[in-house]
């Protein structure tokens, strides 16, 4: 009897993330059936941001490093797509991803190598400065980057060119198809990051986050782990940028500008950065909130800023953090 009493709660506690995930996926798959095109498109953006935030949170929530320069990788991903189209005429989404990921990975590795030599404030400032180098390059070399006008990105072909969206009704077909495409990439990314975070590597990262000194005394090479986390983080956020460009149809320097880095931090905090699903909820929620804020008032920055301040003051654990606290009060069990 006693064995049961201990085993049962633990069984629930380990299972619920998978159950929640399965439910979530089921809901997401059915969205285009009952939501309009606009909502579907919005949700696509939301899922893209969720991938970006998940990547970002690898660094913040799991390694304890706050980067204020993640716009660099997102923007780099977006511009890579635009360049691939413009210079090489590539239209295939798969090629965008296949060729774009190494680019963001290399730059993440480079920037990361420089940044992880420092921690806390200087780390943040350094990530900010490096991202602004990219921004100023995009702005100044306007004959390459299109300057503030940006570069147009046409509708890509999906699934190795099998599906394209020319002709009438192409846009709506694209929106629906692209939603499923992004959903697929999102599910895959989430699964990969889940494994990363629950692997021995992921545990080591969290240990470094909690107690760098003790981690060193376990023989862990702290700087190397941080660098690896940075690389992975930048790559996933870059993936989000790659997915974003064809949907947005246009890549401008705004996506490299540092307030966008702030938005990435904001959405992660909104969802809760101490929980795996927090960034997902935050990414989607923020996309909707910002869209409605921008639509409803000219002063959406004021609104957003106020929400952010209130959030940090009152709800530091974010939406998911609050949900978890509520759930734990209702269902007392030992945490896993």
């Amino acid at each position, binding site marked *: 009897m006693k064995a049961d009493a201990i085993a049962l709660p633990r069984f629930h506690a380990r299972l619920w993330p998978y159950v929640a995930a399965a439910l979530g996926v089921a809901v997401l798959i059915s969205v285009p059936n009952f939501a309009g095109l606009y909502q579907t498109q919005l949700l696509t953006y939301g899922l893209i941001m969720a991938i970006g935030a998940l990547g970002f949170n690898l660094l913040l929530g799991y390694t304890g490093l706050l980067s204020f320069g993640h716009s660099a990788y997102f923007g780099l991903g977006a511009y890579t797509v635009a360049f691939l189209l413009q210079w090489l005429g590539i239209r295939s989404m798969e090629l965008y991803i296949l060729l774009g990921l190494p680019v963001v990975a290399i730059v993440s590795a480079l920037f990361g190598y420089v940044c992880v030599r420092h921690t806390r404030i200087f780390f943040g400032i350094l990530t900010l400065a490096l991202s602004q180098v990219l921004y100023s390059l995009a702005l100044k070399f306007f004959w390459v980057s299109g300057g503030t006008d940006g570069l147009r990105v046409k509708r890509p072909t999906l699934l190795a060119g099998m599906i394209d969206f020319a002709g009438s009704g192409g846009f709506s077909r694209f929106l629906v198809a692209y939603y499923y495409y992004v959903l697929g990439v999102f599910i895959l990314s989430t699964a990969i990051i889940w*494994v990363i975070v629950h*692997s*021995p590597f992921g545990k*080591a990262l969290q*240990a470094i986050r909690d*107690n760098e000194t003790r981690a060193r005394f376990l023989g*862990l090479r702290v700087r190397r782990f941080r660098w690896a986390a940075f690389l992975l983080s930048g790559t996933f956020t870059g993936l989000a940028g790659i997915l974003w460009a064809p949907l947005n149809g246009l890549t401008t320097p705004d996506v490299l500008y540092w307030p966008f880095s702030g938005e990435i931090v904001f959405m992660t905090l909104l969802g809760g950065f*101490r929980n795996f699903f927090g960034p997902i909820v935050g990414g989607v929620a923020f996309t909707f909130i910002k869209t409605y804020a921008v639509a409803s008032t000219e002063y959406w920055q004021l609104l957003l800023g106020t929400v952010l301040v209130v959030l940090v003051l009152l709800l530091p654990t974010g939406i998911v953090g609050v949900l978890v606290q509520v759930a734990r009060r209702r269902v007392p069990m030992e945490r896993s």
Partner: protein
Amino acid sequence: MSLLRTVELRKRFGALNACDGVNFTVEKGEFLSLVGSNGAGKTTLVNLITAHLQPDSGQVLFEERDITGLSVSERIKAGIARSFQLVNLFDGLSVFDNVALAIFAREGKTAKIAALAANDDDVRRETREVLAEFGLAAKSELMAGELAQGERKLLDVAVAYALGPKLLFLDEPTSGVSSAEKAQIMDTVSSVVRSGAVTAVVIEHDMDVVFRYSDRIVMMHEGAFLADGPPDAIRANEAVASILLGAPSPA
């Protein structure tokens, strides 16, 4: 062959002579207590042996191998581990994961990124064994930050032990805990030593604890050894008694 031997180990901090030509030996399988007043040089000695400090001169020999030039992580690999005076845990990880991580680190598995930690049965089994030995099995799913102080100290020792060292240094493992918890900690360490799994050197101030558990007591004073021997011999040593109690020897 002694397990550990230091040869004329010296360390000064400005005018303070923390270690004055110390020749310290530790034999395999013993439970040794390192005592002395604050500033006597105990922690400095341990720091020198575990590579948290570099000596001004002298050598550290482990199993007759010169390890003086090795780094912290290299000495851990060689078989020396320590716990800390101020508890040093990974509060955001569970008790289970704290110990498991030490084992992963020891096994060199921390680079594994494509497999779930939960799937490594060997590590999980050994973690459960260590937790059981330290009486923490029931708390294994709690966050380390949620434990009571005495349990945190136990966990700290457990994590150092899980590194599979041959020689384990414990820096004041019973400071800041109740007497019941003290007994629990020291009983566990003692039984782990008795089982032959590890040799322990404990820095302690609580003389009751020291006399009850130690095989051998070494007393430091102003960077040098004042006395070295089994508890009975130390008890009878008048010089020691005057330093410890500031009065003629007790019964």
